[in-house]
């Protein structure tokens, strides 16, 4: 990241903590109120490629961590500016008890399926999302399956191992 942006970010968002791991990964930890404005800000600053929205279940701390990973597209069709190799990892935490957050689909259109996925697999509600309908799953699960307290091995034992093999009646 060019130093300018880092300083600008620090000035505009004094509460956000910016750390750099290695030379290409920058981690910005922000409180949840400032995430939307931060995203809009970095988008204008050139990080216009939202590569991934992820969620980490920190069950011991009772929080979900939403992770937005951004990187810049090329400004010019031909020339590489050197900024493109930077990954900006923007993180914020929300309470695990009643997980809800604002959608970012109005800033990044491609956030739509990511948020749908997180809604389905983690049970995080995104307010303002137009299509929070199931994406992958067929069965209903009591606990969204990607949460840490969902034990897939136990689930397999309880559900699949209880399906009996076909008995040959004649035998």
């Amino acid at each position, binding site marked *: 990241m060019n130093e300018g942006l880092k300083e600008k970010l620090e000035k505009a968002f004094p509460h956000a903590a910016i750390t750099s*791991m*290695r030379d*290409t*990964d920058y*981690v910005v930890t922000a409180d949840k109120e400032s995430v939307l404005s931060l995203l809009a800000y970095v988008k204008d600053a050139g990080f*216009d*490629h*939202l*590569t*991934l929205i*992820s969620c*980490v*279940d920190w069950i011991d701390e009772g929080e979900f961590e939403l*992770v937005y*990973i951004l*990187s810049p*597209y*090329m400004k010019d*069709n*031909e020339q*590489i500016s050197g900024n*493109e*190799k930077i*990954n900006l*990892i923007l993180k914020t935490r929300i309470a695990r008890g009643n997980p809800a957050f604002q959608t970012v689909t109005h800033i*990044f*259109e*491609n956030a*739509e*399926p*990511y948020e749908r996925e997180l809604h389905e697999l983690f049970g995080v509600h995104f307010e303002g999302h137009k299509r929070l309908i*199931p*994406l*992958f*799953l*067929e069965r209903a699960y009591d606990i969204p*399956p*990607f949460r*840490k307290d*969902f034990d*897939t*091995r136990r689930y397999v034992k309880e559900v699949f191992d209880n399906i009996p093999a076909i008995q040959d009646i004649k035998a």
Partner: protein
Amino acid sequence: MRELELYFGPQHLGMVGNFSITLKAEGDRVLKATANPGYLHRGFEKLMEYRTWIQNFPLVCRINVVEPDHVEMAYAMAVEKLAGIEVPERAQYVRSIYLELARVGSHLFGLWAYANMLGFDTVAQWAMYHRDLVLDLFEELTGGRVYHIYIWPGGVRRDFPKGFKDKIVTTLHSIGGCVPDYDAAFFNNAIFHKRASGIGKIDQRRARELGATGQVLRATGMKYDVRKVAPYAAYDKVEWNVPVRSDGDAYSRIWVVRDEMIESVHMIFKLLDCMPEGEVFNKPPNPFKWKIPRGEAYARCESSRGEFGAYVVSNGEDKPYRVHFRTPSYPHGLIILEKLLENANIADVGNTMISLYVVAPEIDR
């Protein structure tokens, strides 16, 4: 006209992979398309939380059956970043050659899918035949035809077998010898041109907004290739070009794919020429005891379909705490496809989908 509801897939000859699109159509015109994934959802990222770092390597490659190699690479790169493992120089070259071979194989598979979709069996069969030759190379190198499980943290799993260099060269030459035939029969076929040009057209601004990468973006004119913008493995060691086109339609995309294949083959030759001797594997610690310090890493590489990324979080244990893969087909198949199919012709549904090279397992994971 009567409004129809059509299911394109999952059981469908034109569907590559287990994917489904629900179409609302009026006659031949699609009103609304809804991607319906999940037929291949296995919960990889959840399963990975139950397996140790090294046990995950056989698992991750299953995320994309067409080209497992870039999944391995993304995961290995993330793990190497997290654990601070160095990769020997020769291994970087071996990895690059291996990944480029995978790209050629994968593009040939894409070519098969595309030609097959258009009912053009002839080219489809050739492409599949040639892909099989590439698979033979993989078998020789890694011991597996489809799932290679070759890249390991700290290098690669085995060195080149004896005489392998020559074998690569012979095979690629024999495939390259058929390029004029491919061109004549497929890429320069007037009817194919008629069928593909203007289909699934997307301009650069829209492509950027929707998070496109890979040939979808390159077909709109941007030379965006992770191998170039954020070089990994040995991609910065040799000269090569990023092929682009400017129309943004299916025809451009397939031409980008074609040029990319040829560029990959040239790159393999160059890499083979300047490959150094030496070690190819820095052993990671004992797999039963390997713990990676707390932290997170995002690593990305350029797969044959676009940017492939792995976001890995460790909490200091011998298993990953959370893994999330950024797969190129995800935005392509779930957003761009839906947008492109609005108002398209029913005959072009599969055409559009395959020109975006949507691979279902990497969407569902």
